[in-house]
């Protein structure tokens, strides 16, 4: 079974990620039994059949909008956001909006081109789970979560900016 990082620990992952293969359509692709994370489009096309199951997660592509799940985010035990490549940063805003605007509190998972050096930023904007790229050592990737011990600005993990959380000493006027 594949491993992921969740809540700062490496755990076995019992979810299956459904990706549309060539020739599949969101309407007709078969969603097998068990815990499956389906593409947003599949969820939208097959909602009637899937919504009673309770073991369905959904993943959002970087060019899709999290607002499509407005009002129903809490129905998902897991929502994943895809990073098609390292440099595509839309997923950071998608995650932030899922948490801050849409009020999602369940597992928020980064999938795709996810590597150690992105994890610190990802956890800051609201991700708590990371399906890191399988060709890399996941225990090594875990170290990325602790690169920094302090941050200037507010985000999801730290609701107040540094200047509201700490008493940064005022400079003595004459040094």
């Amino acid at each position, binding site marked *: 079974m594949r491993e992921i990082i969740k809540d700062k620990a490496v755990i076995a992952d019992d979810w299956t990620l459904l990706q549309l293969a060539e020739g599949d359509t969101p309407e007709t692709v078969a969603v097998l039994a068990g815990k499956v994370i389906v593409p947003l489009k599949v969820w939208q096309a097959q909602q009637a059949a899937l919504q009673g199951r309770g073991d369905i997660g959904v993943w959002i592509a970087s060019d899709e909008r999290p607002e499509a799940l407005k009002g129903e985010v809490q129905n998902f035990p897991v929502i994943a956001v895809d990073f098609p490549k*390292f440099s595509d940063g839309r997923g950071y805003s998608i995650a932030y909006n899922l948490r801050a605007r849409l009020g999602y509190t369940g597992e928020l998972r980064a999938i795709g081109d996810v590597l150690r050096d992105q994890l610190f930023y*990802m956890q800051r904007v609201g991700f708590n789970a990371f399906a890191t790229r399988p060709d890399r050592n996941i225990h090594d990737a875990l170290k990325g979560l602790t690169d920094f011990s*302090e941050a200037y600005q507010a985000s999801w993990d730290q609701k107040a900016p*540094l200047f509201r959380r700490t008493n940064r000493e005022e*400079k003595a006027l004459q040094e």
Partner: protein
Amino acid sequence: MYRYDQYDHQIVKERAAQYRDQVRRRLSDELTEDEFRPLRLQNGLYLQRHAYMLRIAVPYGLLSSTQMRTFAQIARKYDRGYGHFTTRQNIQYNWIELEQTPDILDLLASVEMHAIQTSGNCIRNITSDEYCGVAADEIIDPRPYAEIMRQWSTFHPEFAYLPRKFKMAYNGAAEDRAAIAVHDIGYTVVKDAQGEIGFKVMVGGGMGRTPILGSVIRDFLPWQHMLTYTEAIMRVYNQYGRRDNMYKARIKILVKAIGAEEFARQVEEEWADIKDGPSTLTVEEFKRVAAYFTPPAYETLPAADARFEQLKAENKGFANWLNRNVRPHKVPGYAIVTLSLKKTGVPPGDATAEQMDFVADLADCYSFNELRVTHEQNLVLADVKQADLFALWEQAKANGLATPNIGLLTDIICCPGGDFCSLANAKSIPIAEAIAERFDNLDFQHDIGDIELNISGCINACGHHHVGNIGILGVDKDGAEWYQVSIGGAQGNESSIGKIIGPSFSAHQMPVVIERLLEVYVRERIEDERFIETTRRIGVAPFKEHVYATPIKAKHNAGEDAYA
């Protein structure tokens, strides 16, 4: 100037450690070059034609003499004895070994500096007016706001992988010296009718392939909302900026595509959720940061110094230098001095390690231990006593830093170009040198007066050619280097984008092209009209006609004369 507290130190130290480990993983092949590239770029390390280039951030162009000495040390120990000051008020070194970069970052951290976000598709170093705090026409010193923005944008987790690079600039004076109209966001500090401080927010300016001047999307943003409103702009851009084509990925393209009004509406909508939230600035935080920018201990001096006036009258060279390189200061008896990095024969913006040490000494001796880097690639001593100017001038002259050409023809803005940069289509430094040599005569330059000549070696426009009164752009035609010339560009309060005069030229023709442009100006100018004013009045046609009237003999026969 701002000094690091324990938090700033900790963050920069942790960054240096993180980067050291990234380099280790790259060298041991745990990271592929493709994976390492975005990491090193976010740390200002580019792979150029011959070696790595490291760009170090100088926040809003302000640095201490200690920091300048560290630059000299880096130049000596890790480079070839010199560095290059850039149009973004930073410094870059062109001959860096990857293996040594972690040590350089440790050294920088020890003097409160870093290379964070000096490259990559993230929020870059914040730039500002080089005369902040000392200019007579300043309304509000923007540096506390720029510093607060520097901290907010440093390692912002959501905006590190934007569609493209992102540049912000601040201006707080009547005259815009920060070129805010050609930045992704330009903040002008303003006061409203009640005397409250806020910002006029301009978005979507930029140069590059599609030069566009920014659009004002908010006339008055109260200062407390600076960070939340900026966050809203960034979030809209991060989600909707184009990512399919890097040439269409800057925020200016998004603003242009949907219109400034619609863009402003989306920002307001995004802002509504976070306005008045925890990131709203507090008076305490503003005061904490502003305390670092209080005026130094100025002496009470007479507005005019008799000895100084006498020396000025007696010495033409000194008078010339005062005329071009020294500006009035808001405090009586003080002056603002620009040290020219544009001596003919030296690539624009370059300084040797010896010169860096020397200017650090000047700063200690004459200007409260501080220096500034200008976006025109010169250095500034902001707080010099009038009575010290003569001694300073003599010393600067002896060290090749007193060329009295600030704002003149040879004060050329120029990118490193094809000699170093792997993006360049053409060399730019030899063009600058050929022009500087041709017009080295100072009397001639003074007669021509204020003129901005800007050279970029490629369409990325690091040399700001679009806003040069004369702009030169290196282009590639069938593998050969050619130069496209535009006129009528300007920065500042009346910013404009230059217009191309016609087919491009070979390198050897460029000095003659400039000469012909100047001939038209001299022929057509009315009284004290500056080059840009004449250009605006008569348009491109007379210049074009004269430049292309007869062929300019090319030194080499390679390629056809494009204009023939």
